[in-house]
């Protein structure tokens, strides 16, 4: 909310869209317009909304399960579409709502009741995937760093195009060890890159707790469509014999 006030948008000009999960309850906590849809589909809903209402500030929010697992396909294609919105993923590397199952970002050796000894799967790198899919603004924030996070949200909202912000969000209940991120999270040493390959390499090679913008490149949005050039009467005439 502080980010919105910095950006200067009143609540009624903002739409917060979410899917399902702990993080997806967010729209109900604000005075903005909002939509709490089905699991994994916050992004396509936001795309449809923003396409007809470019005047609104559209923010899609969700968690790692919502965005990277059930909604993974929409994540990739939203990055490609480059619709002007912010996508904020609160990543706690666990399914908290269903009480502790491994998500795509969970480490492969993390022990849980459903996957004793771990899933054995490599974890998903959201930043690298978002970059490879074509996102033009890719950053990582941390809820334990509220000032830095607010700045990233403001930057993401103001960015002209699809802005993807991965937010490290420890789950104190099912991943208590994530509380330790507080001591280890740090600002990235490198400035944002404008070269996609470099940014992907950074996302793959740097440690997982580096905060800041990885990639930023403005790109023209929306292919220019011709203005309204037809009327319904013109269309109907085309069927006349």
């Amino acid at each position, binding site marked *: 909310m502080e980010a919105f006030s910095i950006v200067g948008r*009143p*609540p*009624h*000009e903002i*739409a917060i*869209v979410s899917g399902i999960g702990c993080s997806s*309850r967010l*729209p*109900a906590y*604000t*005075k*903005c*317009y*909002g*939509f*709490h*849809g*089905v699991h*994994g*589909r916050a*992004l*396509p*809903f*936001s*795309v*449809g*909304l*923003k*396409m*007809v*209402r470019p*005047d*609104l500030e559209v923010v899609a929010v969700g968690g790692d399960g919502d965005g990277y697992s059930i909604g993974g*396909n*929409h994540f*990739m*294609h939203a990055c490609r579409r480059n619709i002007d919105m912010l996508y904020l993923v609160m990543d706690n590397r666990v399914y908290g709502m269903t009480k502790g199952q491994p998500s795509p970002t969970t480490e492969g050796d993390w022990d849980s009741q459903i996957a004793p000894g771990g899933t054995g799967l490599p974890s998903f790198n959201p930043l690298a995937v978002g970059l490879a899919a074509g996102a033009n603004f890719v950053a990582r924030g941390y809820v334990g760093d509220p000032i830095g996070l607010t700045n990233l949200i403001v930057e993401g909202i103001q960015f002209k195009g699809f802005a993807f912000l991965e937010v490290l969000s420890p789950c104190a209940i099912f991943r208590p060890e994530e509380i330790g991120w507080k001591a280890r999270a740090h600002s990235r040493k490198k400035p944002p890159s404008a070269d996609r390959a470099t940014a992907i390499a950074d996302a793959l090679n740097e440690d997982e707790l580096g905060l800041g913008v990885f990639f930023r490149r403005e790109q023209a949005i929306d292919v220019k*469509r*011709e*203005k*309204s*050039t*037809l*009327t*319904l009467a013109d*269309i*109907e005439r085309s*069927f*006349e*014999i």
Partner: protein
Amino acid sequence: MTRSSISVVFAGSGGAGAMTAGAIFLQAAARSGYYGMMTQLFGAQVRGGEAAALVQLSIGPIEAQPDCYDLFVALDWGKIESFAPEIPLSEKSIVYHAKDGGAIAPSIAKTKARMIEIEMTDPQMTALERALRGKRVNIFAAGFVGTLVGLSEKSLKEALAASLGRKKADVVAGNEKALAAGIAAAKRQTENFLLAEANPGKRWLITGNQAIALGTLRGGVRFVACYPITPATDLVEWLSPVLQKLGGKLVLGEDELASINMVLGASFGGTPAMTVTSGPGLSLMIETIGLAVAAEVPAVLIDVMRGGPSTGIPSKMEQSDINLAVYGGHGDAPRIVIAPMSVADCICTGEWAVYIAEAHQTPVIVLSDQLLGQANEVIELTSKRPAAATRRTDGGDPKTFKRYAIGPDPVTPMPRPGTPGFGWVGDGLTHNEICVPVSSASVHAAQMKKRADKIARFEPGELWGECWGNGDTAIVAFGSSLAPAREAARRLTAAGRPVRVVGLRVISPAPIAQLKKALAGTKRVVVLEQNLGAQLYHYLLGLKALPADAESIARTGPLPFRPAEIAAHLGHDHVNSS
């Protein structure tokens, strides 16, 4: 002697251009003032495989396919056998086949139709020309059959020119030559099938898919998100450029899940929005239909039904998505399901779907099918349009505004995002009047009742359906089964056994009172539908909308009902086509 109607099949392997031949023939007839309809029949492959254009011409309106085709034109025999058994011919039919077209399809030979071999290729064409430009037997065939039924050279040339568009001069010249050869060859034939004089009028030539799209544009749809699927793709391909030139937007979603959620997003934003799909796509969208019901967001879904289950038969029709459309999804999620009654009615039903969705804040599913959707038909113009309706957006006083208020009117205002003071959150979770998710029993019951009341109070007026005739036997049907049902009823009535046909435009909520009124005085009621499980029959019977002894005629697609088949089911198989 002239005839009042003729039915012709143009068939050939992929690339032979059977569809183009049919389209030129139909177009020329339409320009000459005849009524006509062309449907499409495909073999195993949707494109590049064998195909047939089934064309009927008449001096009066046509809707149903005939029991038997009069003429069959084989541009080549190729793999025609793979669908030949699906094209009814009799010993009265005549088959014209290309001289170098290969071995005659056994199923066609078995019909005892008269076989006449015709030289369809210009013998002066060199091998190189044939290879480069094709044999153009299809254009020959259009000219040939067009002339046999009495269409003028002028109308055929105009139809060819319209079909070619802006093709290069040498292509145009080659096609004109093939057309002229076909016309000349017809004049050498001893048979002819001259149609009686036409009765020209102000009419349209339109497909069912185009007609539904046009209707929804009339209704105000300005956002479409969809994923390509046969047989709905041609609807969207026609719609896309038109919608964008009207100032609307069309998005190709990454899948059907995305498409329906994009539709909800656009609709939440205040724009009437639609998706277009077929059975498999509708299956994928079901979860979000429940969301649209729960959050009360308007949405129009067009389902151009095809053979199911699973991938089924993409290119052919079936009426087997009734259960899915009416009941699909978990929980109690009442929605509105309607179905066009003819190609012409696709315009009205499409437009109405948008008004209903907007006024009732509900998903509306429109059940069309492949036969209706891909039929290209000459239709009579009507000025009859459904009464316009829009969504309620005036929230009144922001201080007392409750998005999901429980009160006398179950339809509650949904202010447009961006309006100060009314910020509300649509939610698929059970929510209270002010959009807060709750799990209390009383709130759940109240909101469920609000949504159920909204649908139960939907008043379709005279658009619920239609009743034709007044016999004491009634056929109840919907969609593309109505045309053959009406033709069967017409024949039986003419033979002294009056049959009435009751067509449903509204499937859900079932128009029980209207249906009962339409069935008053009947002794026998038969529900006709194209699916094995008798979905419509069981649905209506379960609601006690039918007499307890009502009968069912239900069979799988993909072959459309023939009027004689329906008459036979009713126990009058000796009543033949007039």
